[in-house]
């Protein structure tokens, strides 16, 4: 067992626990906290997979931004601080059953597929030959610069021969602006509907 593996299993368990706790908790705030735990653990898993930039973004945007937004939403929409809106047990069981089936199917698929062969197939079909061992060039965990270059349309990891992401990057930027305006428009103060209406 290497340290990395220990950490992996540690964070894997926390992530799963957080996720399960999100699913099971009835109090929204606790759900949010569990989600924080889960997402932080996931970001740790990203670090473990040499995706330090993605992990940092996950922490910054997801945990520090999105979740805060969600908690904001909770605060703005709850009629009492720790209100619970419960679902019927039958629904819960049904969901649990479907979830279990779903999980078993995915688990079955995960275990049944030989990912190495699939990966090699993809690599063989790719126009630019890359190592089938995956992207590990920045094994020391420095992916910020390659990522930045790929957003500028350059691909150092593929000898510069694969297409970059300049256009999607720009589109996402515009998209974000649109979302900003749209969200501001949607969330602006409106006349509150009379309770009996």
């Amino acid at each position, binding site marked *: 067992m290497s340290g990395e593996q220990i950490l992996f299993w540690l964070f894997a368990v926390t992530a799963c626990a957080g996720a399960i706790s999100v699913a099971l908790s009835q109090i929204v705030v606790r759900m949010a906290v569990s989600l924080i735990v889960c997402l932080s653990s996931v970001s740790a898993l990203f670090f473990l997979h040499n995706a330090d930039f993605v992990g940092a973004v996950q922490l910054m945007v997801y945990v520090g931004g999105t979740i805060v937004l969600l908690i904001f939403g909770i605060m703005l929409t709850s009629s009492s601080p720790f209100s619970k809106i419960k679902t019927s047990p039958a*629904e819960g069981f*049904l*969901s649990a059953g*479907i*979830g279990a*089936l*779903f999980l078993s*199917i995915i688990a079955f698929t995960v275990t049944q597929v030989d990912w190495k062969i699939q990966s090699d197939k993809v690599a063989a079909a790719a126009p630019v030959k890359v190592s089938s061992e995956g992207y590990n060039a920045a094994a020391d965990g420095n992916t910020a610069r390659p990522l930045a270059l790929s957003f500028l349309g350059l691909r150092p990891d593929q000898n510069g021969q694969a297409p970059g992401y300049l256009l999607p990057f720009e589109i996402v930027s515009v998209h974000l602006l649109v979302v900003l305006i749209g969200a501001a428009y949607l969330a602006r103060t409106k006349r509150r509907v009379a309770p009996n209406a």
Partner: protein
Amino acid sequence: MDSLGYELSWYLRIAWLLPLLGFAIEVFGGYWGTRKTKTAAYLAIGCIAAGFVLSTVAFCRWNAETGAFSHSGEAAVHEEHASLRHIPFAGQAAVADHAEGHAAEHAEHGSGEHVHGEHASDGAEHGGAQHDEHHAEHQSIAALSGTIYTLGKFGDLEVSIDYYIDSLTILMFMMVTFIATCIHIFAVGYMSDELTEDYVDHFAHTSDGHHVHRPGRFYRFFSYFSLFSFSMLGICFAGNIFQVFVFWELVGICSYLLIGFYTERKSANVAANKAFIVNRVGDFGFIIGLMILWTYCGTFKFGDYEVDGHERPGLFSMVRGHDGELAQQGSDVILKTHGHDGHWQAPQEGESKTIPYTLLVVAGLGVFGGCIGKSAQFPLQTWLPDAMEGPTPVSALVHSATMVAAGVYLAGRFFPVFTTEVLLAIAYVGCITLFIAATIAIVATDIKKVLAYSTISQLGYMMLAIGLGGWAAGLFHLITHAFFKSLMFLCSGSVIHGCHHEQEMPKMGGLRRKMPITAYTMLVGVIAIAGLAIPGTGQLMSLLTFGAVDKPLAFSGFHSKDAIVATALAYTQLNPLHFLLFLTPLVTAGITAFYMFRLWFYTFAGDPRDHHVYDHCHESPKVMWVPLVVLSFFAAFCAANGEQGSLFGMLSFSEPVGLADGMTATGTAAIAVPSHHAVHDVHGTAGAVALLAAVLGTLTAYLLYCRKVVDPENIRNQFSGVYNFLVEKWQFDNLYDAAFVRPSHSVARWCAACDRNIFDAILHGSVKVCIWVATIDRKFDEGIVDGLVNLIGNVTRSVGLSLSVFQTGRMRQYVMFIAVGVVTLFALLFAFMPKA
């Protein structure tokens, strides 16, 4: 001399189109902001006066080039009849040759170098070359023709806007624009009570018995006047018969609009309709004539023209050639299509283009039919008296001086195409008309009606003259008549205006004390139309004018009527069979003098018969009497020196070729047309006889109406049968009513009954069948087609409704559906995917 025709055509073209411009502005300009300004009148006067100025310019140019006005009188004196021999047939534009240099040389002799009109065909006739040398100096350009714009081409046939300019055209332009200007000015005064927003029409009543109130129509009156001027000038300007027809109809519509100017008055409406419908009868003949001519001659143009560089003869050249003779071959007339430079001859045998003689007669009669309608000749004379419903300036301009003269003008213009039979018919129609109208005028009491009948009668004189071959005499009378008749109408208008729209002569009397200017200018007109002269003053005049004038002192009417009577006498001498053609105008000359003086005495002399009218009447304003004075001057002196005068000379200048020597026709109408020489020989006799008749008529009128030697009442009672016959206008209206109107009405009623009983029944039956079919169709539609559609719709709807159960609106359920779906999909995949 670049192009005289082009230049003249431009003068006349602008003169012609200016009133149209005025009309457009007046119509589209609307009310000019208010109905109370005279802007429209000023505009109309400006247009027509500018037209007169341009016409005058054109006249001067023409005179300068041809000397027609300033020399022909003199020439007539010295050369007498001979000088007229060689005036080329109208339409054969006299041209020596084409060389322009020659043209310049000959210009001082008035020697016509025909000029190619800008568009014009080379309608040149080498007139002068065939005749004696000493005549050549009087030889001149008789006519200029050309095309302004081609409207359409149908093979060789061409419909275009042409011009045809000769002395007649220019004189007509002068006459029309001058008289129209005077009458326009007069109308400013006469129509001034229309300058209001609330005009009360005392002659029209609403259903509840009140007078009609309406806005004034001052501007409308003048816009119609402008349109009329345009149309009339268009007739004079026209270079082809179709163009004439177009403007003919435009003139007709103007007449209709102006007669019905007081549209609230039923009588005005009826009169307008009558004028229009009666004119249609004549125009029907006109169209037949047009069709025949186009079919056989293939052109409408008067003058020669050019197509693709080839000369083509116009109508006149085709029928008469350059020598004025018909080329008859059996029952056909050979059209002279062969030749060039205006020398048109019958082509070689076999190549000839012919027209059956009878059809040529019919064509002539047809065109003359149009003239009958327009000039109110027997038997279509009935509309003109009724047309007096229009405002008096309208009567003066449209129904005496110009429009009705258009018929005479056309008869004169189209003279070359008329055969002797047609001419005879014209003569007799004119003869009958002049007598009938004169007799009716004796008994008429409405001052305008008297003038209207006198107009018809005088037009009859003109027609008679043309029919007798006195082309120049007829048109001479046309011009002089225009002056004195417009003068008299304006005077009557002045009287009517002064008497507050009282038109009945029995209610007048003694007005000369109240309105002296009107009375004495009227007297000038009456003397002119009566044809009075002072016998024996010819020598005196000759002395006074150093021989320039040798005619007795007389107003214009004497000269022109003298010419006609002389022609008639000469004609009767050649054709004793037709002695009535001389006697009737002679007698009528007396009658004319009688009724005209009757009118004057009735109105202006004696004692006032109706003191109410007399007390309220007044002299007209200056704007009205100034035109009277001007016109009276011209009425008196325009025909100075008679047949040796400039006016007659100028007309003779454009006289159709061949007339001067007289003609002798054989066949159906075996008549002979007197030569100028013959006419001249009998001139003295005829003049004396005519003067005698006029003096007798005048004396009778004086005795009856001024001296009251015999009370006219007694005579009326004595001859009550004749009197009633005359009052009923020879029963023409009743005759037409019985012969045409009532039959038409009964046919119409019969048709209506047919419509109602037969066609409507069929229609209703078919409608019922349709409804029945439609009912069945509806049942089919509702039952089967709609049923099918509804079924589909219902099925869709019910399926949708049953499916919509799944649309629970619960988000979580949707997620559940997705999850279940994915799981199911996987299960199916696992179950059925073949193992790789």
